[in-house]
């Protein structure tokens, strides 16, 4: 795709038009979580004070804390706590299925997921983590500038061709963390492949299943022809109410499968709904991420 000048500008404007609301909402959301650098409870190359210790031989003179040393005769060195910045890679499913909302007052699943992702990124960035997207040119970096880049990337709500997007974790840093946002209602094979790759590269993470309440409750009745968002799949039933329990069973099985996958690889899995306040989900995500030492 080779957009001409005006088209590019138009899309850029659309992008920047959507950006502030997403950014503002995400920041607002991020403020609800107070981050901090993850102290490692041992001396290291962090910014935080850890302890004073007497000077050993070999310590560089520049490391002596003269203010402490001046109180007595001994020379002390200020040790800082060792702080580790993690690389977190986010992925939001950009498939057509995510652009679904059963109620025009509810955000689509994609929007809900992107909001959560960006808010999580902001919180993490404030905490000094490196955050990136599972895309080629958005490798995890720290800093405010990265926040803007992420916001721009996440504000792009264009839908990929397929029903569900494919996650590609080859570019994600080894040993980093991964958060995958999707509804996980499609084919599970790519997800399993991605998780296998992540396990192989000692990545850990969270599977966040974002669902619309309708997908949970299946409140349909009568003769109905169900079509997927891209229209590729369809299923017609004469009495939709008859399918309700079967559908719910299959959904529960899918959730179980996600949970099992997560267990196998030491990941977390959760299901968030678009009709719930995103702040709760964010807090859970943050804590789940922070808890993975």
């Amino acid at each position, binding site marked *: 795709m080779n957009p001409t000048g005006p088209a590019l500008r138009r899309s850029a404007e659309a992008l920047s038009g959507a950006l502030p609301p997403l950014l503002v909402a995400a920041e607002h959301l991020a403020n609800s979580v107070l981050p901090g650098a993850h102290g490692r409870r041992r001396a290291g190359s962090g910014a935080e004070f850890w302890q004073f210790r007497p000077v050993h031989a070999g310590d560089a003179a520049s490391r002596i804390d003269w203010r402490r040393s001046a109180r007595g005769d001994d020379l002390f060195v200020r040790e800082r706590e060792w702080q580790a910045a993690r690389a977190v890679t986010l992925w939001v499913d950009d498939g057509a299925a995510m652009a*679904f909302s059963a109620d025009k007052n509810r955000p689509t699943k994609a929007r809900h997921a992107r909001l959560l992702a960006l808010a999580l990124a902001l919180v993490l960035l404030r905490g000094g983590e490196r955050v990136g997207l599972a895309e080629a040119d958005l490798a995890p970096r720290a800093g405010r500038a990265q926040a803007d880049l992420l916001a721009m990337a996440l504000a792009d709500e264009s839908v990929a061709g397929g029903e569900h997007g494919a996650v590609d974790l080859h570019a994600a840093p080894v040993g980093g963390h991964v958060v995958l946002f999707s509804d996980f*209602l499609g084919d599970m094979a790519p997800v399993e492949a991605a998780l296998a790759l992540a396990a192989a590269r000692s990545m850990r993470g969270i599977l966040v299943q974002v669902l619309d309440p309708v997908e949970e409750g299946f409140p349909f009745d009568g*003769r109905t*022809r169900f*079509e997927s*968002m891209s229209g590729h799949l369809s299923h017609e*039933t*004469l009495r939709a109410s008859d399918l309700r329990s079967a559908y719910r069973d299959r*959904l529960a099985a899918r959730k179980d499968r996600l949970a099992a996958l997560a267990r196998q690889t030491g990941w977390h899995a959760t299901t968030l709904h678009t009709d719930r306040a995103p702040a709760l989900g964010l807090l859970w995500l943050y804590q789940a991420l922070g808890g993975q030492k």
Partner: protein
Amino acid sequence: MNLAALGFAAPWVLWALVALPILWWLLRAVPPAPVRRRFPGVALLLGLRDKDPESQRTPWWLLLLRVAALAALILALAGPVLNPSRVVPGQGPLLVVMDASWASARDWPRRIERVTQALEAAQRAGRTVSVVELTDPPAVAPEFRAADHWRERLPGLMPRPWSPASDLPAWTADLPPGTETLWISDGLARDGRAALLAALAGSGPVSVFEPATPVLALAPPVFDGQAVTVTARRTPGGVQELTLNALGRDPAGAERVLDHAALRFAAGAVNADARFDLPPELRNRVTRFQIDGARGAGTVALTDDSLQRRKVALLSVREGSERLALLSPLHYLREALRPSADVIESASLDDLLLAGPDVIVLADMPGLTEGESQALLHWVEEGGLLLRFAGPRMAGAGASAALGGGGGGQQDDPLLPVRLRAGGRTVGGAMSWGDPRSLAPFPDQSPFVGLPVPADVGIRAQVLAQPGPDLAAHTIAALADGTPLVTRAARGAGQVVLFHVTANAEWSNLPLSGLFVQMLDRLAISTRGARPDAGDLAGTHWQPQEVMDGFGLLSRADDRAAVPGEDLAPVLSGERQPGPDLQPGLYAGTALRIAVNATDAQTPLTPAQWPLGTVVETGARQAEVPLAGYLFAAAAAVLILDALATLALGGRLLRAAMLVFALGLAASPRAQAQAPTGDVDPRILQATENVVLAAVATGDPQVDAVALAGLRGLSDALYARSSVEPGDPMRVDIETDELSVFPFLYWPVTADSPLPSAQAYDKLNRYLRTGGMILFDTRDAEQARLTGGTTAAGRRLQDIAAGLDIPPLEPVPADHVLTRTFYLLTDFPGRYQGGTVWVESAPADAQQAEGMPFRNLNDGVSPVVVGSNDWASAWAVDEQGVPMAQVGRGTTGERQREMAMRFGVNLIMYVLSGNYKSDQVHVPALLERLGQ
């Protein structure tokens, strides 16, 4: 409506109804269209199977709807007809026998319609037809021809105002065998019917058409001296309420209903009376009685002279001397005659004769000239009744004639029934020998016979007749001593009657008694009213004046041949009914008009009895109503409902509705564009933004232009001089424009200004009541000053203002607030000056305030100001602001124009600020209180 009244053109189509249950089953198998839903979780659904492999059931009501639609369709295709006619096609020639009598007229169109049906059927079957009217039977055998021929002649068939002859018509013998007969009967039994029926039945089947409505007939009106009673008769039936109208000519000569009375038939009753207590003047005018809403000669009763009032002429005494009323010889006559007769009175005999009276009364000797006597005698001989009274001068004349005439007496006077002896006789007087004479009982041949003779009637003086051989024959009343009191003699067709006493109480107290009135009645009234008997009618001829047709409508018949009295007599006596040779109508003889009515009190009104087995149609059947169209419409409506319901079930009703709505919008963009503006005139909207003076359109372009220019000049002046800044003046049409946005209307009135409509009056009154003001200007002060009267425009203004709610007016008082709202003014000139300007009058209790030059008039603003000074012309300026009309001359004129302008400014200030200037009278009091 019973089920039998429903028929089908194609009954076999109804078999399709059997298929409806199958259709029910089929429809159940076809489920409604699926709802399309986007659902990301569809991947989870793939491969799921419906629990119930059978189809989703269509809702029962949708099924019912569809089956109903189909049932309606099937029924419609079967061609249902309400009240189908079951005409059984007959064989052979068809004979239509119509009674066509006066009794058939009541529902003649139905009979004709029935005949038309029969003719149409015969035409389809190719049968020959003959139509015979029994009241106008063919001379020879009935003519059987194609139905076309008779259909053309059908509109010409009319009922006759008489009944069919009772003898068996000769043509029945010549009927071809196998003739089917349709007898259109009038419903009355009649002699000879059975014979005719037998004769007709002899040649073929007979069916009878006889509508079941009752037959009504009126008997001739009966006048009993006080009221007219009209008896209506009918064939037996239930309770029936009718109205009987008395028709006649009003004084303008137009025929109209003079009176009406209710006719109420009790259930089963055959007679009902209507009583008309009419004043004589009205009764004289009645020409016929007619049952309201009924048709036919039987429901019309013509009146003749038996209801008429007599016209009695009194020749006034010709002396110039004024005498006391009670002594006037004519007073008692007048009083006695007035209640029952039409009394005309004149001093000129010529005038009386011209009036064509029935009776002329002469009191005493009127002193007629020779020519007048001849004319009077001629009138008597033509059939008049001359009633004379004696008196002193008659006695004296007799005496003088006897003295001078050498014993001739009045023997040559044909205007006296007997010869009189000279001089009178006085009995019972102071100088006479006896008591006043009383009356002898009336002789048998006297018209007074039977009247009781009161004992207290006494005759004190009389004129005496010359005894003669014929005196006794002429005497119709005598005194107890045998001397004649009333004598009578025939003169030509008329007669002369002489009372041998005066008409006043001078000679006797007879005029004071009731007997006098009775005698006059016998003499004058009884000469009319009785129908002439056969003897009277013999040898006379009666000219038909009006004849009645079968429907009871009258037509002039002056051109018909006169009818001999011998023919009239049996009809009048009821021995026979009217017929073709003597049509019902009004017949005039020499002095009398006789009405012959289609029916009388003896006309038989028994319902016809048909032998058992005769097919009698009553015609109560309603017309055929094909129902297929309704059923098709119902099917279509049900199918539309079905479509809507299906859409609703599929969740697509809203979308479909929106689509239809969008199509509708696209189809009518103009309607959409106009909708928001509604019918508010943009001009009126503009007028709400500012103070706008308005002129009422008069229809005269010149006047309208000047009025608008005048308001423009006034608006300019207001703009320049005051804080009022009016917009451009407008012309308003009081019929169509909204007035409430204008504070002030200038209404120039011309002689031919149109009157506002009732709606406009409503609007104007609302305008005036809610604070609007109208300045009426008749623009003719100059003309009014010159002519000194009300001008044409002034009268028009009165006409226009009659419908307006205008309070009492008075000329502008010197202290009216109009004189000081802006400028101080004393008069209000326009182009003219001196015309009075009227405003609402001040309340009577207005007080002059202490120390103030003005009365305390604080309430109310006059809703109208009326004047004639043509202010608009004085105010009028053209587009450049140059005055348009000349006012006065030179500087005086300019001054007058300035004053006119000042009046305008004052007026608008008055309109806008009301009586605020009047309130200034309180200022000293307020200042005083503030100072404290």
